[in-house]
């Protein structure tokens, strides 16, 4: 029972040679005693601490003993006797001594130490924060076996004005699974939400329907029960770990019981592990998606496919291989002309699973990582500058030491000691900042853009914390920083030319460091300009996007959904009757002005898409255009603030009886009835010849449907009743009315949960979240960089002014004007800054394109932004130069010359 060998090894290194063995023996004895008393594990922990204690004591003993007294004969393993010259202990001793000295000298230079530590803490803290999140979201492997071989396969049909992501129709999934050899395993899945009821709880839960192969494709095993197989029908479900915990208290007996899930009684057959989240963490349960190859109805788009590839698959080659399959399937199955057209144009889209899950937030994160890297660069140059200034003021001291025989290594070590202490302090405070910063960043981060549910949470984001990797990263960064700014001056002032320096020391001559210092300022200014330009471009985009008129109001609108499933409301008239009674109750709530509903809400569920034709188009034989569609009821348009341009709104009878009338948007009217009035004209879906003709009764303003970046699309509204519409309330208390509405629902339809609760304002903010988040972060980075840059410039000029005070005094004695002197120094600072600004603008020209996906209404090379930010930076630089320049002109020539 002994202490670990490496501990003994370390103790031997720090002790006076020959004095360690008995101490190690003591520790061994105590360790054995503790192990007998408290058990092995506790003993190990306590013993490590007492070994550390002993190590410190041994090192102290050694440092308290003169070198001559501790040099005991050393028996070399190769035979022979000598004394050990530089063993590791004496190196440690020297470091401890230098670190102590450095700490003392820093405590005398509090201003310098403070500025350095704060600068480093900010930079390192920002780095660790962003890195923690980037690591969790982008670098940590997904919780699936061999996740890099998983891809999501979707589809698009360019040129058919269908949405960008069509998904994979069932029949094509069957074809892919049979024909493509590069798929080891494939699964089809889709997502939705549905009312679920179990253990006395009723809630709207997110669900995923998936072919049973989903679980083998992703390589997951249940923690309880079993997974669905091909033999299971649509009457089973597997639960997510969180639902099992939340609803069933982790009761293993839940397997085999039946509850209401996704509209019917389903038997729970299994529970999945806690880290299994697919397609994202909101999925509460999975139900089987039953596809029988012989019985597929073609044209069912909207599902997505996930596949496990065999090793070494070239994705482009795979896309080429898969491309013609859609056309072949269509020719084999036939189907209407519109289906044929889509399948002809159909292209598979293969995305690595991670990219699919992380979505748009990865751009924002990489940009942020770039921005904090720049901040770090600025901070390091700043600190390097401070150090050089400090080293120069120590020049004479060092020259004297060197002349008296101090070794070069020793002098470098002294310099490094200060750098290490400051970097350690900066790193510690930085880690603390990150500790608080990570949760803040998570709270501010936007939701990702994943499939199906709309704004899905970014995987891994919620669980991101200041992790081990990030801490190691911070530590490495701190040490690198210490080297970067500690070694530069240390090397410059300990070289061969030092003794020459002894001669000029103390004469107030600006040394050779001037060029390096100016270069550092150029780097700082340039970095700040890059960040300023980026932040300004994003700010302009945000402003442009925010001032877009979406066609509806963003303020004072509250919206929610509720799903009514009651047997007495099956009939259209009865449901309509119920909806109107319900809306009357809602309208009676305090502050509510108008109430309406829509089947799919803009910015949330968007709108459907269908090809429509008019009598004119049909007669001309032209291609029927594709428009978006939704069903509206009640005072939907009034509540949303969508203006009526022509005709009238729907009335209650039209909704109740489903009379074939429609209201169309301005652009739809232009598209379908160019040059004519749309009122009383007729339209119908082009792919259903049995459909009646619908009469246009009104024309309304265009609206932006999916987000504000997209131009308004033509839209057709049908009079609707719906079991689960989005109700829209115009009220001045949109932020506070949730609980009253919930209470009302509890009273009227207690069996139906309320869900998708938003204000239009939050929905609007969500669509801009990625942009506003990046803008905010980049803005903070830009301000930080500008301040640091200004501090750097100020520091350099202050130093120059101090060094040149004698020269200034001579100039003034010879009749130089104060204003002239001021101008001289301001111009000197300005010249360097302008160089930096030019460099920054050049770099920005290259890097702003990384922002292009976030920008709106402004070019990546927008000249106005570039010029404005250059001017801002020059102004800040001149201001930073002015303060030391004023000090220069305030020099009293007599006093300055006398002190020399």
């Amino acid at each position, binding site marked *: 029972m002994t202490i670990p060998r490496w501990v003994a090894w370390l103790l031997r290194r720090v002790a006076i040679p020959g004095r360690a*063995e008995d101490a190690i023996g*003591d520790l061994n004895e105590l360790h054995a005693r503790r192990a007998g008393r408290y058990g092995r594990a506790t003993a190990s922990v306590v013993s490590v601490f007492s070994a550390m204690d002993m190590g410190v004591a041994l090192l102290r003993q050694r440092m308290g003993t003169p070198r001559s007294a501790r040099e005991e004969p050393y028996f070399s393993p190769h035979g022979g006797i000598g004394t050990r010259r530089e063993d590791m202990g004496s190196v440690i001793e020297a470091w401890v001594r230098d670190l102590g000295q450095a700490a003392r000298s820093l405590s005398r230079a509090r201003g310098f130490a403070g500025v350095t530590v704060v600068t480093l803490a900010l930079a390192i803290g920002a780095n660790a924060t962003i890195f923690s999140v980037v690591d969790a979201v982008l670098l940590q492997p997904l919780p699936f076996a061999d996740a890099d071989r998983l891809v999501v396969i979707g589809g698009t049909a360019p040129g058919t004005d269908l949405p960008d992501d069509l998904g994979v129709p069932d029949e094509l999934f069957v074809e892919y699974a049979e024909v493509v050899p590069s798929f080891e395993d494939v699964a089809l899945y889709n997502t939705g939400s549905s009312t679920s009821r179990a253990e006395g709880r009723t809630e709207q839960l997110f669900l995923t329907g998936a072919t049973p192969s989903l679980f083998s494709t992703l390589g997951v095993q249940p923690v309880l029960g079993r997974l669905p197989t091909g033999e299971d029908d649509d009457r089973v479900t597997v639960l997510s770990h969180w639902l099992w915990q939340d609803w069933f208290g982790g009761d293993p007996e839940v397997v085999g019981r039946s509850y209401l899930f996704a509209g019917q009684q389903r038997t729970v057959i299994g529970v999945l592990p806690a880290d299994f989240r697919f397609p994202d963490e909101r999925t509460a349960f999975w139900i089987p998606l039953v596809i029988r190859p012989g019985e597929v109805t073609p044209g069912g788009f909207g599902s997505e496919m996930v596949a496990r590839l065999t090793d070494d698959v070239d994705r482009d080659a795979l896309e080429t291989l898969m491309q013609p399959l859609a056309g072949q399937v269509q020719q084999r199955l036939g189907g209407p002309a519109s289906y044929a057209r889509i399948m002809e144009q159909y292209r598979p889209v293969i995305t690595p699973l991670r990219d699919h899950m992380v979505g748009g937030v990865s751009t924002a994160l990489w940009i942020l990582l770039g921005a904090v890297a720049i901040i770090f660069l600025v901070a390091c140059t700043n600190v390097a500058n401070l150090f050089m200034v400090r080293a120069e003021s120590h020049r004479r001291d060092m020259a004297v030491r060197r002349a008296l025989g101090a070794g070069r290594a020793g002098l470098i070590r002294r310099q490094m000691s200060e750098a290490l202490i400051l970097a350690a302090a900066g790193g510690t405070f930085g880690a603390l900042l990150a500790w608080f910063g990570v949760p803040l960043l998570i709270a501010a981060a936007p939701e990702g853009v994943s499939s199906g549910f709309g704004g899905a949470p970014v995987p891994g984001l919620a669980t991101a914390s200041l992790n081990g990797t990030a801490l190691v990263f911070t530590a490495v960064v701190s040490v690198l920083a210490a080297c970067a700014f500690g070694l530069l001056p240390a090397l410059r002032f300990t070289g061969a030319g030092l003794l020459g320096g002894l001669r000029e020391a103390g004469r107030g001559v600006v040394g050779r460091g001037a060029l390096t210092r100016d270069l550092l300022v150029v780097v700082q200014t340039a970095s700040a300009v890059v960040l300023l330009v980026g932040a300004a471009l994003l700010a302009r985009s945000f402003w442009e996007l925010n001032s877009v008129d979406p066609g509806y109001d963003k303020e004072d609108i509250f919206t929610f959904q509720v799903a009514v499933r009651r047997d007495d409301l099956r009939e259209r008239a009865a449901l309509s009757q119920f909806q109107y009674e319900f809306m009357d109750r809602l309208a009676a709530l305090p502050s509510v002005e108008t109430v309406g509903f829509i089947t799919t809400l803009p910015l949330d569920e968007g709108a459907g898409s269908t090809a429509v034709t008019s009598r004119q188009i049909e007669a001309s034989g032209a291609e029927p255009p594709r428009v978006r569609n939704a069903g509206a009821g009640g005072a939907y348009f009034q509540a949303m603030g969508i203006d009526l341009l022509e005709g009238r709104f729907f009335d209650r009878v039209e909704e109740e009886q489903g009379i074939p009338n429609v209201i169309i948007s301005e652009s739809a009217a232009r598209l379908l009835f160019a040059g004519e009035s749309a009122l009383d004209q007729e339209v119908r879906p082009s792919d259903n010849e049995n459909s009646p003709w619908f009469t246009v009764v009104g024309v309304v303003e265009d609206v932006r449907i999916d987000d504000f970046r997209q131009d308004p699309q033509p839209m057709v509204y049908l009079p609707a009743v719906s079991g689960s519409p989005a109700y829209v309330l115009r009220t001045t208390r949109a932020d506070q009315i949730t609980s009253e509405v919930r209470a009302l629902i509890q009273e009227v339809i207690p069996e139906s949960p309320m869900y998708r609760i938003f204000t239009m304002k939050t929905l609007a903010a969500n669509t801009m979240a990625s942009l506003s988040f990046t803008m905010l972060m980049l803005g903070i980075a830009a301000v930080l960089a500008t301040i640091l840059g200004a501090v750097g410039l100020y520091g350099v000029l202050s130093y120059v002014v101090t060094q040149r005070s004698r020269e200034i005094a001579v100039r003034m004695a010879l009749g130089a004007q104060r204003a002239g002197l001021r101008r001289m120094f301001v111009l000197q600072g300005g010249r360097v800054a302008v160089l930096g600004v030019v460099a920054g603008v050049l770099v920005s020209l290259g890097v702003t394109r990384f922002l292009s996906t976030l920008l709106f209404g402004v070019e990546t090379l927008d000249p106005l932004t570039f010029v404005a930010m250059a001017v801002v930076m020059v102004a800040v630089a001149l201001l930073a130069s002015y303060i030391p320049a004023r000090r220069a002109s305030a020099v009293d020539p007599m006093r300055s010359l006398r002190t020399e």
Partner: protein
Amino acid sequence: MLAALHLGPDEAYTVSIADVIEVRSGRRVRTANVHTTVQRLERKGLVSTRLGASRPERGGKPRRLVTVLPEGVEAVRVTTRAVRALADGLEDAIGGAV
């Protein structure tokens, strides 16, 4: 040094000294501190140390055995006498004989 005298030259070493101090005074001392103190006393010439034989229960490491030198004994005598002299007549104030 008092602990070392109690133990005698063949049994006084860091761990046993710490034990004696704890048993007799009720105060716990860290082994590392005892180690440092012994080294200081040795440098002052009050004690001498030698390495004992290797012992299996110590992982094959020797003990550093402490012998109190005559100078040390003298120092102990002077110090205890001083403490006694100072405490003399304070039995009521500090309770019990010193």
